[in-house]
C-alpha cells in the first residue's frame, strides 16, 4: 500500500497513517485512488474501502469497534463514526488530533 499509510493485516478495512498526511495527498486504496479531503494525523485511520454502518472495523486483523455511520473509502475513521463494542470512549475536543488547545 502506498506510503504514508500502513495496511497492518490483510483482513483490515482501515489503513493507519505512518506520518501526518496533508489534505490533498493521493492514496491508493483497494478499488480506487482517493485524494484526502482533510489532513490525517500520524497513527490515525482511514477507510480502505466503503464501510457500511453496523460493520465491524478490523485493525491488526481484529475487531476494534463498529461503524456508527456509512464511511466512504479514504475518509477518517475515528470516534465520530465508530464505537466500542465494550465501553464508550471518553474524548476531548482535540480528539481529531489537530484542533488547537481549546480554551475552557
Amino acid at each position, binding site marked *: 500500500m502506498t506510503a504514508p499509510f*500502513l495496511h*497492518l493485516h490483510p483482513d483490515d478495512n482501515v489503513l*493507519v*497513517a*505512518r*506520518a*501526518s498526511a496533508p489534505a490533498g495527498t493521493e492514496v491508493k486504496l483497494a478499488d480506487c485512488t482517493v485524494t484526502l479531503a482533510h489532513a490525517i*494525523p*500520524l*497513527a*490515525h*485511520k482511514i477507510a480502505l474501502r466503503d464501510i457500511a454502518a453496523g460493520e465491524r*472495523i478490523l*485493525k*491488526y486483523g*481484529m*475487531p*476494534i*469497534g463498529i461503524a456508527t455511520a456509512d464511511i466512504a473509502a479514504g475518509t477518517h*475513521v*475515528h*470516534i465520530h463514526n*465508530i*464505537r*466500542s*463494542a*465494550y*465501553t*464508550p*470512549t*471518553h*474524548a*476531548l475536543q*482535540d*480528539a*481529531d*488530533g489537530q484542533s488547537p488547545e481549546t480554551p475552557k
Partner: protein
Amino acid sequence: MTEKFQGYLRSDGRKGIRNTVVVAYLVECAHFVASKIVAGFDDEDVQLIGFPGCFPNEYAARVMGQLCTHPNVGAVLFVSLGCESFDKVRAKGTVASTGRPVETLVIQRSGGTAKTVETGRAWVRSALDEVAKVERAPMGIDELIIGTICGGSDGTSGISGNPAAGKAFDLLIAEGAACIFEETGELISCEDIMAERAKTPELGEELRAAVQKAERYYATLGYGSFAAGNAAGGLSTIEEKSLGAYVKSGDSQISGLIKPGDVPPRGGLYLMDVVPDGEVRFGFPNISDNAEIVEMIASGAHMTLFVTGRGSVVGSAISPVIKICANPDTYRALEGDMDVNAGDIIEGKRSIAEVGQEIRDLVVNVAKGAQTKSEALGHREFILTYKSFDPIGPSCLPAV
C-alpha cells in the same frame, strides 16, 4: 553464555540492582516532614514513598511491606504522624526481619517538624553508611524481574513501541527472566487469544476471568481505561487500545497470573491482575500510570519498560523506568526523556527485532548500574492508594 553483573545480595537470597534508602510516610500528614528529610540528600540514593490514607487497608499494608523489602532497597525510615491507622509496628517488623536497617519516627513524639527532620536526616546519614557495606554478588538475567506498562498511548504504540517491548520480553524470558504485563482493563477483547497462550487450560480460564472482571468493573464505573489523549492520538475504542497494549506481552507462553505483591516464583511471563476483587470500592483500579508501576515493583520488578506514544516523562521510586517512545514525532519533541526511539519502526528505519534487541541490551546495562533518562533527571514518582484483593486461586501458578 549468559551475562553476569554485580547485584546487591539481600538476606532472603534475592538480589537488587540498586541500593536505595527509602523514607516512607505512613499518612499524608507526615508527607511534608518525610519529604524534607529526603531533600537533605540530593546527591545520594534516598527516595520518598508513602501512603496518604488515615484508614487501614490490608492491600496498602502488604504493598508497603513488599516495597520496603524489595531487593533494590537497602534501608527504610518510616515517618508517622502518630495517630493514623497504618500498622507501623508490623511494617517495621517486616523490614527488621530481613536484617535491613529500619527506624520509625513519630512526629508527635519527636518534637514536631523541625526536630523530626533533623533526627531523620541523621538516621538516613548513618543508614547510607550501613547500606554501602551490603555484599555484592554475581547476578544473572535469570534473576531479573521486569515489568512493562504503556502510558500516554496513541495509535503508534501498538505498531512500534509495544511490539518492540514484546520482542524484548521474548528475549529476556528465553534467558530466564520473569516478565510481568498488566492492566487487565486494557486487555478487554484480547481475553480469548490470551487464554490460548496459558500454560494450562485452568490458567487460561483464570486469565479470561481476570479480563471479564475488569470489563464489569469498568462498566460499573462508566469509564474504560481510556484517556482523552488516547483519542487525540488516533485510538478510537478501548479494544483498539487493548490490542495495541496486548502485544507488549510478546509471544511467550503465559506461566501464571499474579496480583500486586505476589512475586513470580520463577522465570517466565506473568499477567498481573490489577482490578480489585469484590464489589466496586475505592474508585478506579489504578488512577494513573505510576500506580501500576508501583504494583509491579511490589511484585519484585527490578525495572519497568514504559512504552509511550503521546509522551510520558515519569520515572519511579525504587526501580528504574526505561522509556520507549513509540511515536517518532514525540521522540523528537521529548528526546531528553526517552531511552529508546521505537518511532524508527514507524519510519521504516529499523525493524521491531532490532529495537527489541536494543531494549534487551539496555535492560542489562541498567542492571549493571547505567542510569535511565528518568533516573538521571531525578524522576522518582510514587503513588499508593486504597484497593482490596482476594488471594490468587490454586490454578494461577501451575507447577513447572
